[in-house]
Protein backbone atom coordinates (compact mmCIF):
# COMPACT_ATOMS: atom_id res chain seq x y z
CA UNK A 1 0.00 0.00 0.00
CA UNK A 2 1.22 3.54 -0.78
CA UNK A 3 2.22 5.61 2.24
CA UNK A 4 -0.32 8.05 3.65
CA UNK A 5 -0.86 10.06 6.77
CA UNK A 6 -3.50 8.88 9.25
CA UNK A 7 -5.63 11.48 11.03
CA UNK A 8 -8.40 10.72 13.52
CA UNK A 9 -10.23 14.03 14.12
CA UNK A 10 -12.36 14.27 17.27
CA UNK A 11 -14.72 16.96 15.94
CA UNK A 12 -16.30 17.88 12.62
CA UNK A 13 -14.56 21.26 12.70
CA UNK A 14 -11.23 19.50 12.94
CA UNK A 15 -12.18 17.15 10.09
CA UNK A 16 -13.18 20.06 7.80
CA UNK A 17 -9.89 21.78 8.59
CA UNK A 18 -7.93 18.73 7.46
CA UNK A 19 -10.15 18.39 4.38
CA UNK A 20 -9.21 21.92 3.38
CA UNK A 21 -5.44 21.46 3.58
CA UNK A 22 -5.04 20.69 -0.12
CA UNK A 23 -4.02 17.07 0.35
CA UNK A 24 -5.79 14.23 -1.43
CA UNK A 25 -8.03 12.70 1.23
CA UNK A 26 -9.71 9.34 1.67
CA UNK A 27 -12.41 9.06 4.32
CA UNK A 28 -12.23 5.98 6.50
CA UNK A 29 -15.27 4.61 8.30
CA UNK A 30 -15.46 0.80 8.32
CA UNK A 31 -12.62 0.46 5.83
CA UNK A 32 -14.07 -2.63 4.16
CA UNK A 33 -14.00 -0.95 0.73
CA UNK A 34 -11.45 1.85 1.05
CA UNK A 35 -8.60 -0.15 2.61
CA UNK A 36 -8.89 -2.77 -0.12
CA UNK A 37 -9.05 -0.08 -2.83
CA UNK A 38 -5.94 1.66 -1.47
CA UNK A 39 -4.06 -1.63 -1.21
CA UNK A 40 -4.98 -2.65 -4.74
CA UNK A 41 -4.06 0.78 -6.16
CA UNK A 42 -7.62 1.53 -7.30
CA UNK A 43 -7.53 4.67 -5.10
CA UNK A 44 -4.63 6.71 -3.80
CA UNK A 45 -4.45 9.50 -1.26
CA UNK A 46 -2.07 11.59 0.84
CA UNK A 47 -4.12 11.35 4.02
CA UNK A 48 -6.76 9.10 5.53
CA UNK A 49 -9.35 10.77 7.76
CA UNK A 50 -10.74 8.23 10.23
CA UNK A 51 -14.27 9.49 10.96
CA UNK A 52 -15.08 7.04 13.76
CA UNK A 53 -14.00 9.35 16.60
CA UNK A 54 -16.48 12.08 15.67
CA UNK A 55 -19.51 11.51 17.95
CA UNK A 56 -22.15 12.84 15.48
CA UNK A 57 -21.05 10.31 12.88
CA UNK A 58 -21.42 7.38 15.30
CA UNK A 59 -24.86 8.26 16.68
CA UNK A 60 -28.07 6.33 16.15
CA UNK A 61 -31.32 7.78 17.50
CA UNK A 62 -35.00 8.38 16.78
CA UNK A 63 -36.08 12.02 17.00
CA UNK A 64 -39.34 13.00 18.72
CA UNK A 65 -41.25 12.82 15.41
CA UNK A 66 -39.99 9.27 14.78
CA UNK A 67 -37.29 10.08 12.21
CA UNK A 68 -34.32 7.73 12.52
CA UNK A 69 -31.00 9.59 12.32
CA UNK A 70 -28.01 7.35 11.67
CA UNK A 71 -24.47 8.73 11.80
CA UNK A 72 -22.76 7.90 8.52
CA UNK A 73 -19.92 5.98 10.24
CA UNK A 74 -22.17 3.80 12.44
CA UNK A 75 -21.50 0.10 11.80
CA UNK A 76 -24.29 -1.94 10.22
CA UNK A 77 -24.37 -4.33 13.20
CA UNK A 78 -25.18 -1.39 15.52
CA UNK A 79 -28.13 -0.63 13.27
CA UNK A 80 -29.67 -4.10 12.97
CA UNK A 81 -28.95 -5.09 16.60
CA UNK A 82 -30.99 -2.09 17.82
CA UNK A 83 -34.38 -3.56 18.87
CA UNK A 84 -36.26 -0.34 18.10
CA UNK A 85 -34.79 -0.16 14.59
CA UNK A 86 -35.66 -3.83 14.06
CA UNK A 87 -39.25 -3.18 15.16
CA UNK A 88 -39.85 0.05 13.25
CA UNK A 89 -37.72 -0.43 10.13
CA UNK A 90 -37.50 -4.09 9.09
CA UNK A 91 -36.98 -2.95 5.49
CA UNK A 92 -33.70 -1.31 6.55
CA UNK A 93 -32.64 -4.35 8.58
CA UNK A 94 -33.20 -6.54 5.48
CA UNK A 95 -30.34 -4.70 3.76
CA UNK A 96 -28.08 -3.95 6.75
CA UNK A 97 -28.01 -7.60 7.79
CA UNK A 98 -27.01 -9.02 4.41
CA UNK A 99 -24.17 -6.71 3.37
CA UNK A 100 -21.07 -8.90 3.69
CA UNK A 101 -20.58 -11.45 6.45
CA UNK A 102 -20.52 -10.84 10.20
CA UNK A 103 -16.88 -9.66 10.01
CA UNK A 104 -17.89 -6.96 7.52
CA UNK A 105 -21.09 -5.93 9.32
CA UNK A 106 -19.23 -5.03 12.53
CA UNK A 107 -17.21 -2.45 10.59
CA UNK A 108 -19.02 -1.49 7.37
CA UNK A 109 -21.34 1.52 7.41
CA UNK A 110 -24.25 3.03 5.48
CA UNK A 111 -22.08 6.07 4.76
CA UNK A 112 -19.37 3.92 3.24
CA UNK A 113 -21.79 1.81 1.23
CA UNK A 114 -23.40 4.95 -0.21
CA UNK A 115 -20.17 6.89 -0.85
CA UNK A 116 -18.61 3.87 -2.56
CA UNK A 117 -21.53 4.31 -4.99
CA UNK A 118 -21.54 0.81 -6.41
CA UNK A 119 -24.55 0.28 -8.69
CA UNK A 120 -25.11 -2.91 -6.67
CA UNK A 121 -24.88 -1.26 -3.20
CA UNK A 122 -27.42 -3.17 -1.12
CA UNK A 123 -28.28 -0.32 1.24
CA UNK A 124 -29.22 1.98 -1.65
CA UNK A 125 -32.55 0.55 -2.89
CA UNK A 126 -33.64 -0.07 0.72
CA UNK A 127 -32.91 3.56 1.66
CA UNK A 128 -34.43 4.97 -1.53
CA UNK A 129 -37.62 2.98 -0.86
CA UNK A 130 -37.75 4.40 2.68
CA UNK A 131 -37.42 7.96 1.28
CA UNK A 132 -34.18 8.49 3.22
CA UNK A 133 -32.40 11.83 3.02
CA UNK A 134 -28.68 12.44 3.38
CA UNK A 135 -27.17 15.24 5.44
CA UNK A 136 -23.94 16.47 3.88
CA UNK A 137 -21.65 18.86 5.73
CA UNK A 138 -18.74 21.16 4.97
CA UNK A 139 -17.08 24.09 6.72
CA UNK A 140 -19.74 26.27 5.01
CA UNK A 141 -22.70 24.44 6.58
CA UNK A 142 -24.93 21.50 5.77
CA UNK A 143 -27.24 20.53 2.95
CA UNK A 144 -29.74 17.70 2.46
CA UNK A 145 -30.26 15.46 -0.52
CA UNK A 146 -32.74 12.63 -1.23
CA UNK A 147 -30.62 9.49 -1.30
CA UNK A 148 -31.57 8.68 -4.93
CA UNK A 149 -29.88 11.92 -6.05
CA UNK A 150 -26.56 10.98 -4.40
CA UNK A 151 -25.42 8.54 -7.10
CA UNK A 152 -23.95 10.01 -10.29
CA UNK A 153 -22.46 6.86 -11.86
CA UNK A 154 -20.48 3.76 -10.90
CA UNK A 155 -18.18 4.88 -8.05
CA UNK A 156 -19.30 8.52 -8.42
CA UNK A 157 -21.24 10.32 -5.70
CA UNK A 158 -22.52 13.87 -5.26
CA UNK A 159 -20.02 14.95 -2.58
CA UNK A 160 -18.16 18.13 -3.51
CA UNK A 161 -14.57 18.76 -2.41
CA UNK A 162 -14.55 19.62 1.29
CA UNK A 163 -17.82 17.80 2.00
CA UNK A 164 -18.47 14.85 4.30
CA UNK A 165 -21.56 12.63 4.37
CA UNK A 166 -22.74 13.08 7.95
CA UNK A 167 -26.05 11.39 8.43
CA UNK A 168 -28.78 9.25 6.94
CA UNK A 169 -32.29 10.37 7.95
CA UNK A 170 -35.18 7.96 7.56
CA UNK A 171 -38.67 9.44 8.01
CA UNK A 172 -41.17 7.68 10.29
CA UNK A 173 -43.07 4.79 8.71
CA UNK A 174 -46.73 5.23 9.72
CA UNK A 175 -49.23 2.46 10.59
CA UNK A 176 -50.36 0.65 7.46
CA UNK A 177 -46.97 1.04 5.80
CA UNK A 178 -44.44 -1.66 5.07
CA UNK A 179 -41.06 -1.93 3.39
CA UNK A 180 -38.93 -4.80 2.19
CA UNK A 181 -35.56 -5.31 0.51
CA UNK A 182 -34.42 -8.41 -1.39
CA UNK A 183 -31.30 -9.35 -3.30
CA UNK A 184 -30.45 -12.17 -5.69
CA UNK A 185 -27.02 -13.79 -5.43
CA UNK A 186 -25.91 -17.26 -6.52
CA UNK A 187 -25.07 -18.38 -2.97
CA UNK A 188 -26.89 -17.81 0.30
CA UNK A 189 -24.67 -15.10 1.79
CA UNK A 190 -21.66 -12.90 1.13
CA UNK A 191 -21.86 -11.93 -2.52
CA UNK A 192 -22.49 -8.91 -4.71
CA UNK A 193 -26.06 -8.53 -5.96
CA UNK A 194 -26.92 -9.71 -9.47
CA UNK A 195 -30.07 -7.67 -8.94
CA UNK A 196 -31.75 -6.19 -5.88
CA UNK A 197 -34.95 -4.34 -5.07
CA UNK A 198 -36.29 -2.21 -2.23
CA UNK A 199 -39.92 -1.20 -1.95
CA UNK A 200 -42.24 0.53 0.48
CA UNK A 201 -46.01 0.91 0.37
CA UNK A 202 -48.62 2.71 2.41
CA UNK A 203 -52.11 1.19 2.57
CA UNK A 204 -55.31 3.18 3.05
CA UNK A 205 -56.97 3.01 6.49
CA UNK A 206 -59.34 0.27 5.34
CA UNK A 207 -56.43 -1.57 3.65
CA UNK A 208 -58.32 -1.62 0.35
CA UNK A 209 -55.95 0.60 -1.64
CA UNK A 210 -52.30 1.50 -1.90
CA UNK A 211 -51.95 5.19 -1.11
CA UNK A 212 -48.23 5.70 -1.53
CA UNK A 213 -45.42 3.58 -2.90
CA UNK A 214 -41.74 3.76 -3.67
CA UNK A 215 -39.88 1.16 -5.71
CA UNK A 216 -36.12 1.12 -6.21
CA UNK A 217 -33.86 -1.37 -7.96
CA UNK A 218 -30.11 -1.89 -8.03
CA UNK A 219 -27.31 -3.61 -9.98
CA UNK A 220 -29.28 -3.11 -13.20
CA UNK A 221 -28.23 0.43 -14.21
CA UNK A 222 -25.19 2.70 -13.71
CA UNK A 223 -26.72 3.83 -10.40
CA UNK A 224 -29.38 2.51 -8.03
CA UNK A 225 -32.70 3.61 -9.51
CA UNK A 226 -35.93 4.98 -8.13
CA UNK A 227 -38.67 3.76 -10.49
CA UNK A 228 -41.61 6.21 -10.45
CA UNK A 229 -43.45 4.18 -13.13
CA UNK A 230 -43.58 1.21 -10.76
CA UNK A 231 -44.98 3.40 -7.98
CA UNK A 232 -47.56 4.80 -10.43
CA UNK A 233 -48.73 1.25 -11.16
CA UNK A 234 -49.43 0.77 -7.44
CA UNK A 235 -50.89 4.04 -6.18
CA UNK A 236 -54.70 4.14 -6.06
CA UNK A 237 -54.95 0.43 -6.83
CA UNK A 238 -56.11 -2.51 -4.76
CA UNK A 239 -53.11 -4.41 -3.37
CA UNK A 240 -53.75 -7.58 -5.37
CA UNK A 241 -51.56 -9.88 -7.45
CA UNK A 242 -52.35 -8.09 -10.75
CA UNK A 243 -51.37 -4.70 -9.35
CA UNK A 244 -48.10 -5.99 -7.91
CA UNK A 245 -47.26 -7.79 -11.14
CA UNK A 246 -47.78 -4.59 -13.17
CA UNK A 247 -45.44 -2.70 -10.85
CA UNK A 248 -42.81 -5.44 -11.04
CA UNK A 249 -43.06 -5.34 -14.82
CA UNK A 250 -42.56 -1.56 -14.77
CA UNK A 251 -39.44 -2.00 -12.62
CA UNK A 252 -38.03 -4.53 -15.10
CA UNK A 253 -38.73 -2.11 -17.96
CA UNK A 254 -36.82 0.67 -16.18
CA UNK A 255 -33.73 -1.51 -15.80
CA UNK A 256 -30.87 -1.00 -18.26
CA UNK A 257 -28.61 -3.85 -17.16
CA UNK A 258 -25.25 -4.94 -18.53
CA UNK A 259 -23.93 -8.43 -19.04
CA UNK A 260 -20.95 -9.30 -16.87
CA UNK A 261 -19.48 -12.20 -14.88
CA UNK A 262 -22.39 -12.06 -12.42
CA UNK A 263 -25.20 -12.36 -14.93
CA UNK A 264 -26.52 -11.50 -18.37
CA UNK A 265 -28.62 -8.44 -19.13
CA UNK A 266 -31.65 -10.66 -19.81
CA UNK A 267 -31.23 -12.54 -16.54
CA UNK A 268 -30.90 -9.27 -14.63
CA UNK A 269 -34.03 -7.85 -16.20
CA UNK A 270 -35.93 -11.03 -15.30
CA UNK A 271 -34.53 -10.93 -11.76
CA UNK A 272 -35.57 -7.30 -11.39
CA UNK A 273 -39.18 -8.31 -12.01
CA UNK A 274 -38.95 -11.27 -9.64
CA UNK A 275 -37.14 -9.42 -6.83
CA UNK A 276 -39.51 -6.46 -7.10
CA UNK A 277 -42.57 -8.71 -7.01
CA UNK A 278 -41.32 -10.66 -4.01
CA UNK A 279 -40.30 -7.48 -2.20
CA UNK A 280 -43.76 -6.03 -2.86
CA UNK A 281 -45.37 -9.12 -1.37
CA UNK A 282 -43.06 -8.82 1.64
CA UNK A 283 -43.87 -5.12 2.05
CA UNK A 284 -47.61 -5.81 1.73
CA UNK A 285 -47.40 -8.48 4.42
CA UNK A 286 -45.60 -6.05 6.75
CA UNK A 287 -47.99 -3.21 5.94
CA UNK A 288 -50.94 -5.45 6.80
CA UNK A 289 -49.38 -6.40 10.14
CA UNK A 290 -48.29 -2.83 10.94
CA UNK A 291 -51.26 -1.34 12.80
Amino acid at each position, binding site marked *: *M*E*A*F*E*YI*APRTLAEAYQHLGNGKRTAM*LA*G*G*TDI*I*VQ*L*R*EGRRSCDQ*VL*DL*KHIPELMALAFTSDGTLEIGAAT*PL*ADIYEDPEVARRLPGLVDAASLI*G*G*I*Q*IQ*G*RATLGGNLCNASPAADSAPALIALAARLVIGSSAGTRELPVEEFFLGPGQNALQPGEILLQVKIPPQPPGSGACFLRFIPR*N*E*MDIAVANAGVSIQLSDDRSRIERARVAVGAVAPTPLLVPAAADALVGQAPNAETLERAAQAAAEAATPITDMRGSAAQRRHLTRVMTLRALNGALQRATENR
Partner: protein
Amino acid sequence: MPRTQVQTRLNGADIDFLCEPRQSLLEVLRDELGLTGTKEGCNNGNCGACTVIMNGRIANACCVLAVEAEGAEVTTIEGVARGDQLHPLQQTFLEEAALQCGICTPGFILAAKALLDKEPNPDEHRIRYWLAGNLCRCTGYDKIVKAVQKASAEMQEAKV
Protein backbone atom coordinates in the same frame (compact mmCIF):
# COMPACT_ATOMS: atom_id res chain seq x y z
CA MET B 1 6.28 8.05 6.53
CA PRO B 2 7.12 8.25 10.25
CA ARG B 3 6.04 5.33 12.35
CA THR B 4 3.23 5.86 14.82
CA GLN B 5 3.10 4.44 18.31
CA VAL B 6 -0.07 2.47 19.03
CA GLN B 7 -1.23 1.27 22.44
CA THR B 8 -3.62 -1.61 22.50
CA ARG B 9 -4.76 -4.52 24.62
CA LEU B 10 -3.75 -7.67 22.78
CA ASN B 11 -4.70 -11.10 24.10
CA GLY B 12 -5.19 -9.66 27.57
CA ALA B 13 -1.90 -7.75 27.79
CA ASP B 14 -1.38 -4.01 27.35
CA ILE B 15 1.18 -3.51 24.63
CA ASP B 16 2.60 -0.78 22.40
CA PHE B 17 3.87 -1.19 18.89
CA LEU B 18 5.20 1.04 16.14
CA CYS B 19 3.68 0.92 12.68
CA GLU B 20 3.18 2.89 9.52
CA PRO B 21 -0.36 4.15 8.87
CA ARG B 22 -0.52 2.08 5.68
CA GLN B 23 0.09 -1.21 7.51
CA SER B 24 -2.95 -3.37 8.13
CA LEU B 25 -3.55 -4.92 11.52
CA LEU B 26 -2.89 -8.26 9.81
CA GLU B 27 0.58 -7.17 8.64
CA VAL B 28 1.49 -5.81 12.06
CA LEU B 29 0.27 -8.91 13.90
CA ARG B 30 2.25 -11.21 11.65
CA ASP B 31 5.32 -9.19 10.63
CA GLU B 32 5.95 -6.88 13.59
CA LEU B 33 4.53 -8.80 16.54
CA GLY B 34 5.33 -12.34 15.35
CA LEU B 35 1.76 -13.55 15.88
CA THR B 36 1.52 -15.69 12.76
CA GLY B 37 -1.57 -17.60 13.87
CA THR B 38 -3.71 -14.99 12.10
CA LYS B 39 -3.55 -16.07 8.46
CA GLU B 40 -3.51 -14.08 5.25
CA GLY B 41 -5.90 -15.53 2.69
CA CYS B 42 -7.44 -13.18 0.15
CA ASN B 43 -6.27 -9.93 1.77
CA ASN B 44 -9.46 -8.23 0.59
CA GLY B 45 -12.13 -9.07 3.13
CA ASN B 46 -13.71 -12.08 1.48
CA CYS B 47 -12.25 -15.18 3.12
CA GLY B 48 -12.16 -14.56 6.87
CA ALA B 49 -8.77 -16.30 7.38
CA CYS B 50 -7.50 -13.21 9.23
CA THR B 51 -10.51 -12.97 11.57
CA VAL B 52 -9.70 -11.44 14.96
CA ILE B 53 -12.00 -10.23 17.73
CA MET B 54 -11.76 -6.46 18.09
CA ASN B 55 -13.77 -4.71 20.82
CA GLY B 56 -16.09 -7.71 21.08
CA ARG B 57 -16.81 -8.02 17.37
CA ILE B 58 -15.13 -10.13 14.73
CA ALA B 59 -13.28 -8.26 12.00
CA ASN B 60 -11.03 -9.13 9.11
CA ALA B 61 -7.60 -7.89 10.21
CA CYS B 62 -6.71 -7.25 6.55
CA CYS B 63 -9.43 -4.58 6.44
CA VAL B 64 -8.34 -2.78 9.60
CA LEU B 65 -5.44 -0.32 9.72
CA ALA B 66 -3.13 -1.18 12.59
CA VAL B 67 -3.35 2.44 13.79
CA GLU B 68 -7.08 1.89 14.32
CA ALA B 69 -6.19 -0.55 17.11
CA GLU B 70 -5.25 2.41 19.33
CA GLY B 71 -7.15 1.89 22.59
CA ALA B 72 -8.84 -1.24 21.29
CA GLU B 73 -9.05 -4.72 22.74
CA VAL B 74 -7.91 -7.38 20.27
CA THR B 75 -7.97 -11.15 20.56
CA THR B 76 -6.11 -13.40 18.11
CA ILE B 77 -5.90 -17.20 18.00
CA GLU B 78 -2.85 -16.99 20.27
CA GLY B 79 -5.11 -15.63 23.02
CA VAL B 80 -7.76 -18.34 22.86
CA ALA B 81 -6.18 -21.23 24.83
CA ARG B 82 -5.44 -20.84 28.55
CA GLY B 83 -1.82 -21.93 28.84
CA ASP B 84 -1.77 -25.60 27.80
CA GLN B 85 -5.51 -25.92 28.09
CA LEU B 86 -7.20 -25.68 24.72
CA HIS B 87 -10.44 -23.77 24.33
CA PRO B 88 -13.39 -26.19 23.91
CA LEU B 89 -13.64 -25.10 20.24
CA GLN B 90 -9.98 -25.95 19.62
CA GLN B 91 -10.55 -29.35 21.24
CA THR B 92 -13.71 -30.15 19.27
CA PHE B 93 -12.13 -29.01 15.98
CA LEU B 94 -9.44 -31.63 16.62
CA GLU B 95 -11.89 -34.33 17.73
CA GLU B 96 -14.27 -33.76 14.82
CA ALA B 97 -11.45 -33.42 12.25
CA ALA B 98 -12.84 -29.99 11.35
CA LEU B 99 -9.70 -29.02 9.47
CA GLN B 100 -7.42 -30.33 6.79
CA CYS B 101 -4.88 -27.78 5.59
CA GLY B 102 -5.61 -25.55 8.59
CA ILE B 103 -5.22 -22.12 6.99
CA CYS B 104 -8.83 -21.15 7.65
CA THR B 105 -8.94 -22.69 11.15
CA PRO B 106 -7.82 -19.77 13.35
CA GLY B 107 -10.38 -17.53 11.66
CA PHE B 108 -13.15 -20.12 12.12
CA ILE B 109 -12.25 -20.62 15.79
CA LEU B 110 -12.36 -16.87 16.51
CA ALA B 111 -15.59 -16.36 14.59
CA ALA B 112 -17.19 -19.34 16.35
CA LYS B 113 -15.91 -18.17 19.74
CA ALA B 114 -17.46 -14.74 19.21
CA LEU B 115 -20.77 -16.45 18.33
CA LEU B 116 -20.77 -18.75 21.37
CA ASP B 117 -19.76 -15.90 23.68
CA LYS B 118 -22.84 -14.00 22.45
CA GLU B 119 -25.27 -16.86 21.81
CA PRO B 120 -24.33 -20.03 23.75
CA ASN B 121 -26.79 -22.31 21.96
CA PRO B 122 -27.09 -21.38 18.26
CA ASP B 123 -28.90 -23.78 15.91
CA GLU B 124 -27.24 -25.18 12.80
CA HIS B 125 -28.71 -22.52 10.54
CA ARG B 126 -27.45 -19.74 12.78
CA ILE B 127 -23.96 -21.28 12.93
CA ARG B 128 -23.81 -21.57 9.13
CA TYR B 129 -25.07 -18.02 8.66
CA TRP B 130 -22.62 -16.61 11.22
CA LEU B 131 -19.69 -18.45 9.63
CA ALA B 132 -20.57 -17.43 6.06
CA GLY B 133 -17.72 -14.91 6.12
CA ASN B 134 -15.17 -17.69 6.66
CA LEU B 135 -14.22 -19.77 3.64
CA CYS B 136 -12.85 -23.32 3.82
CA ARG B 137 -11.82 -25.13 0.65
CA CYS B 138 -11.05 -28.50 2.33
CA THR B 139 -13.76 -29.68 4.67
CA GLY B 140 -17.06 -28.88 2.98
CA TYR B 141 -18.04 -27.14 6.26
CA ASP B 142 -20.08 -30.00 7.78
CA LYS B 143 -17.34 -31.04 10.18
CA ILE B 144 -16.75 -27.43 11.19
CA VAL B 145 -20.44 -26.98 11.99
CA LYS B 146 -20.46 -30.24 13.99
CA ALA B 147 -17.39 -29.12 15.94
CA VAL B 148 -19.07 -25.83 16.83
CA GLN B 149 -22.26 -27.64 17.89
CA LYS B 150 -20.24 -30.02 20.05
CA ALA B 151 -18.29 -27.18 21.68
CA SER B 152 -21.53 -25.33 22.31
CA ALA B 153 -23.01 -28.40 24.08
CA GLU B 154 -19.86 -29.02 26.11
CA MET B 155 -19.52 -25.39 27.17
CA GLN B 156 -23.12 -25.37 28.36
CA GLU B 157 -22.66 -28.64 30.27
CA ALA B 158 -19.53 -27.27 31.92
CA LYS B 159 -21.53 -24.30 33.19
CA VAL B 160 -24.25 -26.41 34.85
